[in-house]
């Protein structure tokens, strides 16, 4: 048992893991979330009392842990999760931000929302049912969003007599399927969320399983990639010019490093203008540093007085992305009104927002079997499809597969600001596996 002082000491040096859960209600997602929160001491007395009180008022005998996460009046009234909720908990090894996403197919956009910032996704499966359509959808969305780590939690092992062959068959089927989608890393864990097997404590009922519990895995999975291998990217957010007596000539470009590492003295190119210079200095929120990396928020000073403003991208001169006005991407449509060919939109990419027009919607993805439905004409809410967008100004766009941050964008309705679609530039996993879609070999698409 850790004392509060030890806990506080350890917490100040721990890292942060953002993860999302996926799974329909019947798979026991609420129970798993409830147990993770409960067993990590994250449900406090007054919250539990409020849940017990509310459950009693509804005539339920046991406290309904779903009420912990269903925070809206409408959700509690209907007993369903409508929107993503963010939950926070900590152990002595790590702090966690959990995006608790609704599981139904009509809420695909919410899983996309939760997965867009997640470094790990937990996909729940009922051991009695195995891999079903919904499981494949969740794996596909995790693959599409390039969530680096996927955990398959095979739940309700208590209802299949904790039988290893049941788990092994499901794990094998899922791993093969997810690997074909390009999911880089899959960890399968047999659990019973209700009985507590392998969630926080190792199970006494499954001696045959030698891997980590869900919590152990969450605590130890690496939280950032090998950043030296990433293309360095710095979108300029804001120009800092104090023009004070103390700092008459200071001109710094503020932003959050989207990927990779930047060093003082490094030759860089400013896009889309293509002007080159070197990094004269890096200020890390008040401290001068020689090196900085993603996702630090810094201020970069350049050696030459080049024209740089919000929306520009600074990249190493020997590793700068191509600029383009023709964006090919996969989008998840998140608005209730459709996205149609010919529609005028705004595209928000990093810190740059430009006018654009939807030139083509070549295909819509059927999530059930990952087949491409050609030329659908429009995308409606929760659809995932390929789009071709022509922008009014060039964008320095990476493939989403290379950089989640500089390869992602929003399509926005210019009339009222509604967020229409979530975009991922470049070829999608579906295009890779579905050989019948040749459009991605376009010579202009130079990633």
């Amino acid at each position, binding site marked *: 048992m850790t004392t509060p*002082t030890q806990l506080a000491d350890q917490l100040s040096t721990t890292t942060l893991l953002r993860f999302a859960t996926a799974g329909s209600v019947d798979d026991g997602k609420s129970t798993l979330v409830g147990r993770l929160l409960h067993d990590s001491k994250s449900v406090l007395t007054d919250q539990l009392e409020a849940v017990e009180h*509310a459950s009693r008022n509804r005539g339920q005998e046991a406290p309904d842990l779903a009420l912990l*996460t269903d925070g809206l009046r409408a959700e509690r009234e209907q007993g369903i999760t409508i929107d993503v909720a963010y939950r926070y908990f900590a152990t002595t090894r790590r702090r966690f931000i959990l995006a608790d996403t609704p599981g139904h197919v009509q809420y695909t956009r919410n899983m996309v929302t939760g997965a867009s910032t997640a470094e790990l996704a937990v996909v729940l499966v009922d051991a009695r049912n195995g891999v079903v359509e919904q499981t494949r959808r969740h794996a596909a969305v995790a693959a599409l969003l390039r969530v680096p780590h996927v955990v398959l939690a095979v739940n309700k092992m208590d209802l299949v007599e904790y039988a290893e062959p049941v788990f092994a068959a499901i794990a094998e089927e899922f791993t093969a399927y997810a690997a074909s989608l390009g999911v880089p890393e899959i*960890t399968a864990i047999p659990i019973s969320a209700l009985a507590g097997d392998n969630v926080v404590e190792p199970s006494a009922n499954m001696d045959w399983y030698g891997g980590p519990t869900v919590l152990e895995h969450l605590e130890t999975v690496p939280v950032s990639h090998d950043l030296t291998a990433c293309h360095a990217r710095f979108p300029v957010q804001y120009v800092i010019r104090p023009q004070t007596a103390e700092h008459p000539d200071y001109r710094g470009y503020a932003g959050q490093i989207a990927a990779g590492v930047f060093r003082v003295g490094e030759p860089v190119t400013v896009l889309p203008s293509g002007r080159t210079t070197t990094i004269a200095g890096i200020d890390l*929120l008040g401290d001068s540093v020689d090196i900085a990396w993603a996702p630090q928020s810094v201020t970069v000073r350049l050696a030459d007085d080049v024209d740089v403003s919000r929306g520009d991208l600074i990249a190493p001169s020997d590793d700068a992305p191509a600029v383009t006005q023709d964006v090919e991407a996969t989008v998840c449509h998140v608005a209730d009104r459709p996205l149609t060919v010919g529609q005028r939109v705004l595209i928000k990419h990093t810190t740059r927002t430009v006018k654009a027009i939807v030139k083509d919607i070549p295909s819509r993805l059927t999530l059930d079997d990952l087949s491409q439905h050609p030329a659908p004409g429009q995308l409606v809410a929760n659809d995932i499809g390929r789009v071709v967008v022509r922008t009014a100004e060039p964008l320095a766009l990476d493939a989403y597969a290379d950089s989640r941050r500089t390869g992602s964008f*929003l399509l926005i309705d210019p009339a009222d600001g509604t967020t229409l679609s979530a975009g991922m530039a470049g070829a999608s996993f579906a295009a890779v596996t579905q050989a019948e879609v040749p459009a991605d070999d376009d010579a202009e698409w130079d990633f």
Partner: protein
Amino acid sequence: MTTVATVSEGTANPYALSHLDSLESEAVHIFREVAGEFERPVILFSGGKDSILMLHLALKAFAPAPVPFTLLHVDTGHNFPEVLEYRDRTVAEHGLRLHVASVQEYIDAGKLRERPDGTRNPLQTVPLTEAIQQHRFDAVFGGGRRDEEKARAKERVFSLRDEFSQWDPRRQRPELWQLYNGRHAAGEHVRVFPISNWTELDVWQYIEREGIELPEIYFAHEREVFNRSGMWLTAGDWGGPKEHERVETRQVRYRTVGDMSCTGAVDSDATTLDAVITEIAASRLTERGATRADDKMSEAAMEDRKREGYF
């Protein structure tokens, strides 16, 4: 295929940011997005720890330039004198501009009526929304955190409000990656919550790390209090205690700063930041559960107030 072998690599990664550094970087990014996209942003500043933290983050985000935002305080008229003193001192120290919207002035002018229970927290909504309209603020920073309350757990970082400042939780924009959509029509504004992802413990640990000064009421001190509905309220001109309520001197501190009529103190001997952090790490109560009477009015009290325009 499994990750068991990568455990030691993960902890040894020299590029891994501590969780406080991650949260700080994210909050700074949000402040700079607003500075880059909006015309007239304002920071809600009450002199409480969350708004003090926000101001500290804003100072770091734009250094060595000054913070490009003004401040707005909705003064309930029942504020702690130490907090008002802190507020004015901080504003002067950083050369900031402060707007004050006064609940008392609204009551004196007959535009708001005192509630029978004397609680003024819900009365803040009208002066707040009118100040936003009057000054034409288009982005309003709030120190709300998702860990505080279940309705706030559903809140976006950029939260669009209509011309009546209303929040419609069922019609929120999906928020994807770090791409915050701040588009809005004239008259509408966006509430922005840079510390959405911080917990109470994160706030305290960061305050300790950065050596940020706080109003004294956050640390244990002797105070004249009386008990109302299980909460230790400070006796004062605002209307407490009533005849049957008995004042006593106790050693207490505050976990939140709000209207004196509904913000309770907790028994504590934590006189230092270290002691406060230890106390919070061990607490079995959330800060709002422990010290806020207004959240207990109904199961959806916060959601209902937020719908009307409360922050």
